[in-house]
């Protein structure tokens, strides 16, 4: 597959065409470099999920052959998949990066946060995330959010200002003109930065395939003990499942997103390779979040409401 010079355009006879992946890559790299040039203490949110893995890959390319001028931050819900944590630590070590971990379990143990009745920990991430941002004085926080994920995210800017309480006010966003990103902020405020804004799920997978990026194994079909809750296959575990009336069975599944085990569902799949995964996604009639995220189904504006509070 060509990566730099696409075929000569038939309409214009000019060779100066970029493929869509090259256009998206170039734009994302521009965003990383703008942040490196304009901010004092940027950090990349890194969960070991595919979007943050692609962000890290883009950041490595943006500053090559130098090191990435950013640290990483992971908000650990305490219910993460062990394979993903293993991948996270291995990646951090391989690139000689510095990783901050903000732990939801710590907050629960200290009595600052309380476990929800449904056991879902995703919404509990907001406090550890925002407190760590304030404590470390991070002024730019990269997130892997994509506008295609959800309709509130479709309204998100590439550079998105958060106030001193880390809140998002969608009605008071700065217009973004050309590629002139405005990163001005007052002390205590920070900017969330989304280099993958214009990518879709399929773009991310095509890029992973093109670049040969390694992923945690749970993205590929494997046998796993799961049980059905609210229409999703959840992984059995100490986090709180299965409960009475829920039965565990062994199925061949894979994950489309990686998040807290309590609210991230697996899909039935026999896709064991990148090509098979891409074929499966291209044919799927469900969105990534619609298929596998319980927390977005809580209300029509669940994502908007969480983002307003500081969720990423």
């Amino acid at each position, binding site marked *: 597959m060509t990566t730099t010079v696409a075929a000569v355009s038939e309409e214009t006879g000019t060779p*100066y065409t970029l493929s869509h992946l090259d256009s998206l890559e170039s734009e994302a790299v521009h965003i990383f470099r703008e942040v490196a040039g304009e901010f004092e203490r940027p950090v990349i949110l890194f969960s070991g999920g595919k979007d943050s893995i692609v962000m890290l890959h883009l950041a490595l390319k943006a500053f090559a052959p130098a090191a990435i001028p950013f640290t990483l931050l992971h908000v650990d819900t305490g219910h993460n998949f062990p394979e993903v944590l293993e991948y996270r630590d291995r990646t951090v070590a391989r690139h000689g990066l510095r990783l901050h971990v903000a732990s939801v379990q710590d907050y629960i143990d200290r009595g600052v946060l309380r476990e929800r009745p449904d056991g879902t920990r995703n919404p509990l991430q907001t406090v550890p995330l925002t407190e760590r941002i304030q404590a470390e004085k991070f002024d730019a926080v990269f997130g892997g959010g994509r506008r295609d994920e959800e309709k509130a995210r479709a309204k998100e800017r590439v550079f998105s200002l958060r106030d001193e309480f880390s809140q998002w006010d*969608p009605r008071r966003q700065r217009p973004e003109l050309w590629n002139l990103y405005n990163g001005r902020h007052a002390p205590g405020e920070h900017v969330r930065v989304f280099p993958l*804004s214009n990518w879709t799920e399929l773009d991310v997978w095509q890029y992973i395939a093109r670049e040969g990026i390694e992923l945690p194994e749970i993205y590929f079909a494997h046998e796993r003990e799961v049980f059905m809750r609210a229409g999703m296959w959840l992984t059995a575990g100490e986090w709180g499942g299965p409960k009475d009336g829920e039965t565990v069975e062994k199925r061949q599944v894979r994950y489309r997103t990686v998040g807290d085990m309590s609210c991230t569902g697996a899909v039935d799949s026999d896709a064991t390779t990148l090509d098979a995964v*891409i074929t499966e996604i291209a*044919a799927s009639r469900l969105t990534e979040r619609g298929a596998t995220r319980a927390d977005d189904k809580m209300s029509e504006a669940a994502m908007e409401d969480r983002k307003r509070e500081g969720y990423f």
Partner: protein
Amino acid sequence: MSTTTELTETTLLRFATAGSVDDGKSTLVGRLLHDSKSVLTDQLEAVERASASRGQEGPDLALLTDGLRAEREQGITIDVAYRYFATAKRRFILADTPGHVQYTRNMVTGASTAELTVILVDARNGVVEQTRRHAAIAALLRVPHVVLAVNKMDLVGYEETVFAAIAEEFTAYASELGVPEITSIPISALAGDNVVEPSANMDWYGGPTFLEHLESVPVAHDLAHCHARLPVQFVIRPQTAEHPDYRGYAGQIAAGTFRVGDSVTVLPSGRTTKVTGIDLLGKPVAAAWTPQSVTLLLEDDIDISRGDLLVPTKDAPATTQDIEATVCHVADQPLTVGHRVLLKHGTRTVKAIVKDIPSRLTLDDLSLHPHPGQLVANDIGRVKIRTAEALPVDSYADSRRTGSFILIDPADGTTLTAGMVGESFASPEPVKDESEDDGWDF
């Protein structure tokens, strides 16, 4: 669905829509997403659920695009949203912009990155004030391709004469404004005529469907006559054992092409050197062009930092501290003469002062209102700005990237104004600003 074709790399078209409140923009966007199979089952179910809970009979496709609580509550679109869809031939990023006149700034925002703008008109009403406003903004922003979508053809009996008259009137008007390419397509978004599928009701129309046109419009840059420009974003210096002397100037090429061996000048300092290497994200290449993100390696170790502009020595822009521009004011607080602001141009942000606001454009008839004293939200006008340092600006007509800038409020960081350097489009009947000898030529 065929997957083999979807899995190859395609090209990317960024386009924006513009249309008045009731001319069917949401229906067109909904139809495009729906018929190109970009609306997935769970999204459609969510829309059906929400529509039913509001007591609506069918699914309201506008709910697909109105993402915020306030938008759903009020049933209007208040902000630009970006949509994504793909066909076998191309990937699309749609900037979906609200149609209300008070949201001119949103159309400007959407059009600033668009290679194509769709202007929707209702076939029953033809070209109206709002259509002229949208054409003026597309011309002002120099969007390369404009599509006039004459919608609701089903309500005028699919009459060729109705379409032809509207297309002719619009083309004459937009051409005078300097819109380079106009394609008119008769459609019915509601019935699906000529949106994705060719219409059986309009045999007289021999052109492409709306989607076919989107799939085939050129996105490649014709760089033969372009000035090459690289705003330096970041200096890459690994200082490692492996790369002790590597010093690269990283940035996204804003215009034109750079080749190894080119003689380049650094602005504003004016020092000259030679390109000895180009790294395209870690790989050496012989040439690179807009909009690639690259790192240039230069022969001499001269002082270059973020904010500098690298240009071919034989084709350097003049630097100036006095900028004259057409602007669109995008903030709620007004822009006034004497206002102290920050100006971001490329990768450089400098202090600036608004010296004069010679005129404001009335979009309804493109007449000029001399010396308005201030510009308020959504106003388009001419301004004169003095910058604290000299900037290498191009005319926006020559380069959308290096001819554009934003003004920022230094107190709270608000993005105030979008600016386009140099002359703007010609008014159909130029109205001279009589209070000045050199009346601004819109």
